[in-house]
């Protein structure tokens, strides 16, 4: 098992965190999210992203609004809810703790 494969579950688990971070900025369209994620370790596809977003929406962490586009039907633009913001800051803190723990163990 190579190293990328070994770390796949970690990336998968962090995807939700990453999505919340992206959505926290400006209202985003799914295609833009994919473009942002594309060159990173978290490159992902619509088949994964849409179900994840709909789960986050059901958990009331994100919400969307319809916006017209020049080409084709109106698009869903996602944004963070208040609950999502709270969750994101909790996740950020947790992430810092994890980093600290890792650092404490040394190399």
């Amino acid at each position, binding site marked *: 098992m190579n190293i990328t494969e070994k770390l796949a579950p970690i990336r998968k688990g962090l995807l939700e965190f990453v999505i919340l971070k992206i959505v926290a900025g400006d209202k985003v369209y799914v295609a833009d999210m994919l473009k942002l994620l594309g060159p990173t370790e978290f490159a992902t596809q619509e088949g994964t992203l849409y179900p994840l977003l709909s789960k986050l929406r059901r958990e009331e962490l994100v919400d969307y609004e319809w916006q*017209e586009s020049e080409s084709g039907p109106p698009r869903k633009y996602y944004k963070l809810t208040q609950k999502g913001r709270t969750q994101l800051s909790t996740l950020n803190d947790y992430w810092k703790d994890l980093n600290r723990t890792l650092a404490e163990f040394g190399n």
Partner: protein
Amino acid sequence: MQKVVSISLNGIAFQLEEPGYQQLRDYLERAEARLKDSPDRAEIMADLEQAIGEKCSRVVGPHKTVVSGAEINGILQEMGPVESAEEEKRADAAFESTAGTSSSTAPSPPPPDPRKRLFKIREGAMFGGVCNGLAAYMGVDVTWVRIAAVIITLATSGVVVLIYLGLMFIVPYANTSEDRAAAFGAPFSTQEFLGRAKKKPEDSREYDRWRREWRRQQRHWNRQWNHMSEQLRNATAQAVPHMSHTARAITGVFLPIAAIVGAVLFVAWVLALVSLIAQQTVFGWALPHGMPLWVGILVLAMLYFAISTPLKMIRHGGRQAAGYHPGWAALHGLMWLGFTVLFFWIAYTVFPGVHELVDQLMWAADLTVSNISETISVGSWY
């Protein structure tokens, strides 16, 4: 030369070469199967269709109107396999539990058996899934429950049908793995669950064939129904972003009106039901001679759902698309409740017949409640 198939993806038309069409259909079917457990299945499917549609419109132009099979293949590769977020959660839970046992030296106590609850079970259901759920609850084969249901129906000249309908509306569907575990009173994997729900006696070929036919017919109806309601919902939902401010304001006015109409319908329906049961007439109209009471009730129920469902869809679509704050939805619900109570009160004070009926009903309800509580206390001793 290639045969071309015209399709619509979330409302936009495309022309696909036939092999591409097959691929796309397979992809969407697989996606739908994977999302079986997701309550947002319809919405995710619409999202996926829209995403595929956008990718398709990128490869067609004024001089190229057909999407080739190879292009569809590329698009589907880009989309990637659909993974249900629900399934991930289940996998995570499994991971957590294994991690827990391996790290601790003391054997962790087995998880307590989930409390058994009555659910409707969709998988392998004939009609509403009530019999299937009852079978799971009692731990017997569903065939026995169905046979018993038919016999009791015949013996009670159809009263059980009402109970069935009642259960159908009250009992929830087992949608998550936790629900399913509770339905059987024991944890089940999805595979086991499906196997169990679909288990059937092997010798009854005739019965099987008949059941397949019935299921096919039902699927057909369901599809038509879903298609219709989805179209209605999408139409309202898509119309809203295009609306001007005045049109939006009109929607804002329309939603409360829809709430009033909904409330009036609901009150009329309940009153009609009560008067049918108590006096065998609906607002002075007697049942046709020889028609049993339960048929009348069934007809009333169907009539109500036929009228109220489209209204509900429009309300839902309008509300969702207008991007209302959740508070709006709550307000809307409150409005509906308020109007319902108001109309009940008006009916109660204005029509003496209604007054009488309600009093009668209160008396009857009082009786039933005490009967039920007695039965329950006896049942719990048993």
